[in-house]
């Protein structure tokens, strides 16, 4: 038998040679297969090991393992070299311009009125109110009569009404969301807690008035609902809508369907009360109207005013959106100019 260690050295040298000439990953794997893989020459050589005398076995085995370990290390080095070369080559060929803009999903924009309205509704839903809608073409009865606004009453002048060309002439475009109070109370017995959002119409058009605009109405009736409750609820609403620390004031006012009635003012969001153009130097901004539902209204829906009390409130969505976003011309909301919508 030739000198076994020399044979191993010879195989190892051939193996190293094959590794160093390998140009690709498959050349390299091929070399591994031939010399030091599971069925490679060194493994084959080691199959003859049991035939060797005991004293040689240990020595030859150790030499073979060392040779295989060296080859393995060379293999890994060479593999890394080949891969690195490949990456460098690919970078040259496949390189893309990563500074080109990505394909951003192009989101649209919710209308600011819709956003504000959704937010108002969400607050009242959290405070235990449920939504109720109603028709925009409304009967005179629901829009006026049942809200304690009889014909030939000056309170009708508070709202310039659009009439619908209709036999009998008793259809109007609702001037407020308050008719929903009547419709809801006709359909439900107390306790009721309703929020009623929607489009309303008045015959008026300038930078702060639009012939169509949006309101959110709310009302609650139960056995012991009080004006103090109304104050508490609206204080909570304003805190959630306008943030902490916004001072409120309740100022007596008049609405035909509530008594006592109040306007709610918040400290001017622009000047915080020192007086500016936005608040017309008053330091206050009127944001909603409210009051205790007038007993006359209960008469129309068959509630006993001695048994039940309740409150109602209503606010203009455009007004609140204008204050929040610093918009001074209401007409912008209805032009749907992409340069306007895309800001929200």
């Amino acid at each position, binding site marked *: 038998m030739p000198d076994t260690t020399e044979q191993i050295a010879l195989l190892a040298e051939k193996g190293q040679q094959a590794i160093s000439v390998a140009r690709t990953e498959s050349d390299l794997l091929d070399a591994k297969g031939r010399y030091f893989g599971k069925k490679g020459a060194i493994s084959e050589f080691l199959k003859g090991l049991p035939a060797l005398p005991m004293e040689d076995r240990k020595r030859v085995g150790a030499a073979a393992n060392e040779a295989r370990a060296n080859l393995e290390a060379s293999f890994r080095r060479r593999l890394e070299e080949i891969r690195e070369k490949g990456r460098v080559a690919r970078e040259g060929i496949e390189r893309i311009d990563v500074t080109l*803009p990505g*394909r951003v999903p192009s*989101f*649209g*924009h919710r*209308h600011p009125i*819709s956003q504000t309205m*959704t937010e108002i509704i969400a607050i009242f839903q959290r405070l*235990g*109110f449920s*939504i*109720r*809608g109603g028709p*925009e*073409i409304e009967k005179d009865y629901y829009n006026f009569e049942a809200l304690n606004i009889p014909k*030939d*009453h*000056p309170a009708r002048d*508070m709202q310039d009404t*659009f009439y*619908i*060309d*209709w036999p009998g002439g008793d259809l109007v475009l609702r001037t407020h969301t308050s008719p929903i109070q009547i419709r809801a109370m006709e359909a439900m017995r107390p*306790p*009721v807690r*309703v929020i009623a959002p929607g*489009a309303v119409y008045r*015959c008026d*058009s300038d930078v702060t008035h639009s*012939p*169509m605009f949006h309101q959110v109405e709310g009302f*609650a009736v*139960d056995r*012991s609902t*009080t004006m*103090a*409750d*109304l*104050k*508490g*609820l609206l*204080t909570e609403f304003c805190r959630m809508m306008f943030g902490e620390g916004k001072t409120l*004031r*309740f*100022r*007596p*006012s*008049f609405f035909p369907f509530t*008594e*006592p*009635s109040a306007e709610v003012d918040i400290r001017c969001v622009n000047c915080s009360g020192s007086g500016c153009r936005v608040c*017309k130097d008053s330091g206050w901004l009127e944001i909603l109207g409210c009051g*205790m539902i007038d007993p006359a209204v209960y008469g129309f829906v068959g509630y006993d005013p001695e048994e039940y*009390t309740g409150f109602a409130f209503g606010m203009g969505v455009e007004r609140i959106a204008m204050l929040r976003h610093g918009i001074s011309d209401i007409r912008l909301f*209805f*032009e*749907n100019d*992409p*340069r306007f*919508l895309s800001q929200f």
Partner: protein
Amino acid sequence: MKVLYSWLTEFVDTRLSPREVQDALTMAGVEVSSCRYLGEGMDDVVVARILEMRPHPDAEKLSLCRVTDGKSEYRVVCGAKNMKTGDAVALARAGATLPAGMQIGKAKIRGQVSEGMLCSEQELGLAEESPGIMILPGDSQEGMPLAPAIGMADWLLTVEITPNRGDCLSVLGVAREVAAITGETVVLPEVSFAEDTLPAAEVASVVVTDRDLCPRYSARVITDVTIAPSPPGIQRRLALCGVRPINNIVDITNYLLLELGQPMHAFDLDRLAGNRIDVRKSGTPRTFTTLDGTAREILPEMLLIWDAEGPVAVAGVMGGQNTEVLPETRRILFESAHFAPASIRSTGRRLGLSTESSYRFERGVDPSGTMYAADRALSLLSGFADICVSAGSFDIGGDREYRRTVPFRPARAERVIGRTYSDRECTDVLTRLGFPVKEGGKGAWEVTVPAHRFDIEREIDLVEEIARLSGYDTIPTTYPESEAPDFSPDDRLAAEVERASEFLRTEGFSQAINFSFVSGKEWEKHASLLGFDPSDAMRVANPISEDTTLMRPHLLTGLLHNVEGSIRRFVDDIRLFEVGKAFGKSLAEGHFEELRIAFVMYGRRMPGTWSGAGETVDFYDAKGVAEAILALLGGKPFHFVPAASRPFLEPGKSSEIVKDGEAIGWVGAVCRDLLSALEIAGAAYYGEIRVHKALSAPVAVQYRAIPRFPPVFRDIACVFPMSVPVGDVLAMVRELSPEIREAEVFDVFTGAKIGAGRKSIAFRIRIQAEQRTLTDADVHSIHTKVVNLLENRFGGTIRTS
């Protein structure tokens, strides 16, 4: 309404400053929207007298004036010509800043020193324009600050009166409010004038035929007066309150209207036929010329004032031309009456006429104050004019009780407001208001309400008075206790719509809100294209403009106008949606309104990206969006039916979306003729969903076991005649066998290779069984069924590669 602070303090000697009055009234419900000091900017302007005038040596149009303020002399260069030596004028000394912002300094004008400026009304902010400098009354005191010298050291309050508070439409009314807030006392001026020996009843006669429409009619007669201008003080007050001074008689009626809220009318007694007044309805339709020269159509039920021959005034609204006071008028009948509010309002509204008088009458004029107002007018008039007043007066209804009693329980106030009001607190407020209280047993009171408070008829009205005058700021804030309400169907609707809206937003759609009314003119012009007979649309009877006459029958035109506007603003990749109502007439309910979600797509499919940049949106983009919205709304099962029933969509590129045999929406290319009519170039795609029709009752999803056995995929390409609806093919393929889990189209091809009038459709079919692995024979059998369907049912030819 404008109220002068000086005038107010003639009725209530209040300790409150003008600003405090503003705040106090506002917080009591009588909103004072502004409080303006009239002498603003006049601080450094004084009364001066011209001692000498001579021409400027180097300027023809200028003169040099030597003036004195009583202490010092000043040299002033002046450009005006309307003054003369000895005149009292307004001198702004160096250092003054005038209301218009002009700063006065010592200056040399064309070489001559000027130590101030002689001011014009315009420069002082007193007039829009003025021909020369302001010349003050000759007896003005030199050196006196200008503001008090011309009665401008005063404040003008602008008061916003709500419709229920007609009693506050006067200086007296506002004074009563101040008194009710502060506890101070309202003092009515004493009236006195000399009466002639000749009784009024011998000069004229007054009857009221329609007493229900005219509960009280007071009148006084003047048998001699010379028509002349009013004194400056009266004129100034009128002018500052927005009323044009005319002559002493007309001015005094206006003065009383502002002061006491009592509209008065002065008839030329010599032109009253028979010297007689009758108050009665027209009875028949007639034409009557009011003093503004307009011929008015009078209806039978309108209340008129008559003389012996015919009407002389529309009661409470406007006098007639035939009896108005003229420069030569000598004898006057002063009317001071109370007319029923509803009648005046109805008349004014039908005549389209609102006057200071009708405005007050329809809100309620104090019926107990008519006689005092007439006497106050004569008392003031006698102070500056030579008048002869007939003895006695006419006063029909003067003996009636106009006050009313209203029951009140202090406990009720507590129940409504949620705060305890002590009996003392209630009595205190009611006393300050001048409402006498009779405390009954068991907390049931009787409150007497004076006639001027038309708004107080019920207990709740008194509760409001107690609450507002005790201050809303004293009401605590509590939180309403109540059971939580149910989740309503409208809560669900709002949530579904919100979900669809958010989906659209993430798909690149922006939300538009258009008016619900559209231009009837446009709809008539394009009626055939818009697919809606304008006579079936709901119309606004009193539109604000031509563009808002018709309630939109669908949402398309608004969105198309938005597209057009957007292109005009150089934004031409457009995705917009709108949630809103459509309106129209309907057979069943007369009219309908229906919530819709509509969307429009125009321009590139993927705007803002640099690859595939040229691809524009097409029908299938719009259809896909419609399908996704419907899926979100739970609209399944629905299908798309080719239809030419919507004229606003292209006939070959539009589809009805049908569910249970009913159209729940439509989608398609907008009709080209319509686009060109609206000047939109290129193609736009539109979809509209009827929300309520699309919504399904929510059903909990029932879980099906995830298939454990492997699927087999088969691709089948087939050539069909162009007319075959692939949607139908897919639907039938899916129905062929329960093992066909999915069938989809993955390629569509047309062209010369296929032949004209034909299309090649490639389907991929997923075949899978729930309980076992399919054998080759199973798959083959299903494949054969599909091929047979394609060939035999739809005339397809299978392509082999």
